[in-house]
């Protein structure tokens, strides 16, 4: 495979994306601790390079289906963090008018088909988006992000089989973070690599280091290019790690701290990216620092706006159940 070298512009966007995801999630944890947010929240901390690497190859015409751990996918796909933050506050100005919350953030204009509360449900949705792209000849692709746990759902296997048969322009991005809730992946998955599962469907597969933006960018880029050329779908497994608990509030009693510390201290995708771009003189430290400041301001601004935003009008409860009532 020919490696694709990201341009400086792509690298700047990638860093901003990863930093925005990290800061957004850290802010959420803080807001939950301060009692400001309700509902079930799952952070993407540690997995930033996957969303950033894949989405750097996509445009608004490509569709992405996400998961319960969806904030990172949304940010990488260009969803406005102000609308996202307002959504988490349940504000009327939220990206889904406060109706959806963390697990249902969607922005169809950006090709974001929604976070999803049902494990595995996004996989056939992305397959459907790929079908639309193929039949309408849009040149777009359908991308599903999902966890290792989701690859045990029938929806995963049925979708891959259909996509392979129909040679759909789809890319299945498995974020293998080693855990499904409180259960280690190897307890419930008999194959060593999720990527092996592609063989049942004679599907192309790749494994990427999910902590390395460059690797994810190159491999997802190859898979997406292949899909756009009409050569069919790919299962791309990204090896990554969930730095925090399954949900905000998870006490993590079940997880060995040494295991987590190893990843957090040595395999942080932001650190790996920074040392590479600075070491190889691809980006200047000042650029990264400037982005850090801008991101921090943007998140603060999003929080202040969300806190000040009016809540939805309970009188609108029954709006939008149907297109036409």
């Amino acid at each position, binding site marked *: 495979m020919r490696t694709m070298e990201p341009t400086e512009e792509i690298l700047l966007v990638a860093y901003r994306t990863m930093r925005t995801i990290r800061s957004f999630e850290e802010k959420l944890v803080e807001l939950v601790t301060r009692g400001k947010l309700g509902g079930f929240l799952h952070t993407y901390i540690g997995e930033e390079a996957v969303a950033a690497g894949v989405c750097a190859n996509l445009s608004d015409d490509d569709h992405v289906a996400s998961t319960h751990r969806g904030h990172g996918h949304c940010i990488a796909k260009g969803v406005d963090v102000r609308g996202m933050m307002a959504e988490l506050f*349940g504000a*009327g100005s939220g990206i889904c008018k406060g109706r959806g919350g963390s697990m249902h953030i969607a922005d169809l204009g950006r090709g974001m088909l929604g976070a999803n509360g049902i494990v595995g449900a996004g996989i056939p949705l992305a397959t459907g988006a790929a079908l639309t792209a193929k039949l309408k000849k849009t040149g777009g692709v359908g991308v599903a992000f999902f966890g290792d746990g989701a690859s045990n759902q029938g929806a995963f296997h049925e979708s891959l089989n259909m996509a392979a048969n129909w040679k759909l322009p789809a890319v299945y991005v498995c974020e293998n973070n080693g855990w499904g809730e409180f259960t280690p992946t190897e307890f419930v998955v008999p194959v060593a690599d999720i990527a092996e599962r592609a063989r049942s469907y004679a599907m192309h597969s790749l494994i990427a280091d999910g902590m390395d933006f460059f690797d994810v960018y190159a491999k997802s880029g190859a898979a997406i290019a292949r899909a756009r050329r009409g050569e069919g779908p790919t299962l791309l497994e990204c090896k990554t790690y969930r730095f925090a608990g399954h949900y905000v509030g998870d006490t993590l009693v079940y997880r060995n701290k040494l295991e987590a510390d190893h990843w957090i201290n040595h395999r942080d995708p932001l650190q790996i990216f920074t040392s590479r771009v600075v070491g190889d003189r691809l980006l200047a430290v000042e650029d990264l620092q400037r982005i850090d400041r801008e991101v921090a301001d943007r998140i603060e601004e999003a929080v202040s706006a969300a806190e000040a935003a009016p809540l939805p009008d*309970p009188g609108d409860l029954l709006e939008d159940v149907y297109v036409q009532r």
Partner: protein
Amino acid sequence: MTAPTKSARTIPTAFAIAEALRIAMASDPDVILMGEDVAGGGSRPEGTDEMGGILSVTRGLVREFPDRVLDTPISEMGILGTAVGAALTGLRPVVELMFMDFIGTCLDPLLNQASKFRYMFGGKARVPLTVRTVTGAGLQAAAQHSQSLYWITAGIPGLKTVIPSNAADAKGLLLAAIRSDDPVIFCEPKGILFLSTDVPEEDYEVPIGTAKVVRAGSDVSLVGMGATVGMALAAADELERDGISAEVLDLRSLAPLDEDAILATLAKTGRLVVVDEATPRCGIASDIAALCVDKGFDFLNGPVKRVTAAMCPVPFSRVLEEAYMPSAARVVEAARGLL
């Protein structure tokens, strides 16, 4: 009914459920538990502790019954289908379906398999399956983690559906469900899981199909199930201040339905409000209203009022979720309107 007599302690519903599971497993080697994280990932490395399902209800059971607490992959269709097959062939599985919303991913084993075998096979089969599942809104868990879908299972002939309103009934109903030779859906409303009541220590069952008057009254009947029993009781307190005497009936079992108990309270008061956490169409509240009109018409002194959730997906925002859900205030308003 086996009347609970001996020592009781005040424990939350979640603990009462765990206690019922422990008793059922200790008293019958065929009882197995299956579900996501129910064993917390099995044996853990040094210095870690297992969970026990997302709400830790089954924590520790794997230590007592190492071969009978089975962690599953996230494969609801496989879990439910396997449990039905195991039940048909001699085991007595208890499945944890984390949230009832997920029934969408695994309805067939219940809808077309478990519920139909006994009848289709000419009365030869038994499917002693229990599905424990969390229902209800109120935690801002949004559209796919907050639904009360018991109306689906209650509407399927061949399935039984029960829903406790307190810890003591949870224990007795779960024991009855596990020991039943029919498939039973055991709903665990979010609103009661962490509320405590006195729970007797011994092994006892609450018979499936029996409602219970939890507060006697004479002017109006408030019929609830699961978390709405608490709303009905709070409403009864409020009504009492106005000099209105409300009787509260806890259905406990949605299928089979204790029609006699519903008609008896209606006969006594002549007025009935039914409170249901589910959406209003094609549901338990409508079913009870129909029963009152059909078989209790002569007792009625007014319309049957339904206080239910709104006919829309469960919204996330706190203000919308409050508007969506039934409440004690809405029960009071409905009851006052009848008097």
